[in-house]
């Protein structure tokens, strides 16, 4: 827990994350690895593309940042380094997935988020950036968080 920062985790958030991490270590979601670090507030998660999908044998990294009021508030989840080519993943790593924003519920966990993201990857039929990628990424140049974007969720399939 980064106690020096004024926006550190609340006691409740830290307790909950300890629990989640413990549960993760005992029962990690298939295809994911938590990179060990002493920072509870930022998790780096390795994602391995599922077999028999477009992303088979590919490795990506998710960065999960928890707000002070987690789990009331959703964590910020983005891909770092080279984000996968996917119609709902922007080249700056932002992911258009409703449960990360409007549809977040405190009953969700990092593990359930990871499973949703992997299922989103697995159901993709083409490796392509979103059509509005350039416009969006330009708009986010100043390190804007995807949580500040007003997302429009329309696609139930991919």
């Amino acid at each position, binding site marked *: 827990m980064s106690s020096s920062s*004024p926006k550190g985790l609340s006691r*409740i958030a830290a307790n*909950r994350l300890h629990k989640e991490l413990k549960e993760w270590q005992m029962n990690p979601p298939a295809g994911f690895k938590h990179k060990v670090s002493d920072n509870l507030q930022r998790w780096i998660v390795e994602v391995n593309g599922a077999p028999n999908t477009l992303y088979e044998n590919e490795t990506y990294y998710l960065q999960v940042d928890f707000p002070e009021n987690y*789990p009331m508030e959703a964590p910020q989840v983005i891909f770092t380094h080279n984000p996968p080519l996917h119609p*709902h993943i922007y080249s700056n790593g932002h992911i*258009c997935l409703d449960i990360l924003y*409007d549809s977040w519920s405190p009953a969700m966990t990092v593990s359930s988020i990871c499973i949703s993201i992997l299922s989103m990857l697995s159901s993709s039929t083409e490796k392509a950036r979103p059509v509005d990628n350039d416009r969006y990424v330009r708009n986010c140049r100043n390190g804007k968080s995807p949580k500040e974007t*007003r*997302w429009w969720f329309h696609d139930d399939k*991919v």
Partner: protein
Amino acid sequence: MMVEEETEQEVDAAISVYGADCTVICRFPPHLLVRLQPRTANDVSQQFVEAVLMIQANSKYPEEPPMLELKDTKGLEDAKATRILSDLRDLASDLASNPMLVAICEKALDSITEMNQPDGNCCFCIEPLVMENKFTIMKLISCFHCFHSECFIRWWRWMLQGRGLDVSDLFLALQLEEDKDSVASCEKLLEQTEVNCPVCRKAIHPHDLASVWGALFVDNGQEDEIVPDAEVIFSKSERERKAKFDTLFKVQQDRGGIVEPKKLEVIVPGMFVSVPSTRATESGSGLATASFELPESSSLSASAVECESSQQDNILLSQGRQHVLGAETISDNGRIPKSGGRGLNQPRVRYGRQVNRGGTRRGNWVRRDRGTGLNE
């Protein structure tokens, strides 16, 4: 014929024992639905499991035991339901050739009472749901999802704040109406904010909240945020004090002596801005100087605040109605978002729409225009 008569008597007995919980689909051969609720002396809030037992016999009853099924189970793990059912089937074959309808129902009620515990963990804190007393755990009536009352309340307050509603103000409003009926109060509250179960997103029923109603407004002392202590806030002396300052505030307002921070204003030196205690070191020295006198010549307009930083002493705020702005509500361009709430908890500014029901959805983005009309 004798058998049929005896069997019909059995059905009548079941009807008289279970009353409205017993639905007779057919008297002979007997086909019944019996609603199973744990025996908790009708305290619905303490029932964490529920099921409907279907008993369907054929014309060879009671030589041949009836078919038994559990339907509409709530709060009951599959393994537990299977166990209840196999026990009941054993009992039915033991009792073959004897009247058994009521005996089966009684056994089922015993089992379900025995298993009347919330299953698993609280979804908020991932800690096990262990009953310490009647109030530690609450259940949503429509879906039977259970939570620690404390966790649920914290979340509910958060939801209310996110929608710009202040719990203390709401409570005062409801109290003034002398509304003693908590269910009616919950209904009123739910009219203003739709809240769904965090697990299954089913709409929350007023009766669900009635069991935690009292607790909603009490400070549990564990929040990191500033939560006003309900006992202090609702005490007689505090209400009198608030009323007194409200009157004074109104007088000052009428005389034009009050300059209220408007939503598009910039914070200027000397302006009274309360900062959460954790960030007190960052706050300016002007904080402590909120003066309480009424200036003779003052008729400052709101726009003056933006440019006249030197006239800081003219900015007055009634202590009863401080416009407290949490530091986190000031957006990065230095402007203050709409300051709607008046309580100690400045509502968090949230832009989200109503939660989507059903599965996850993905798509494109549209630009979020923060604070529409900020820069015309």
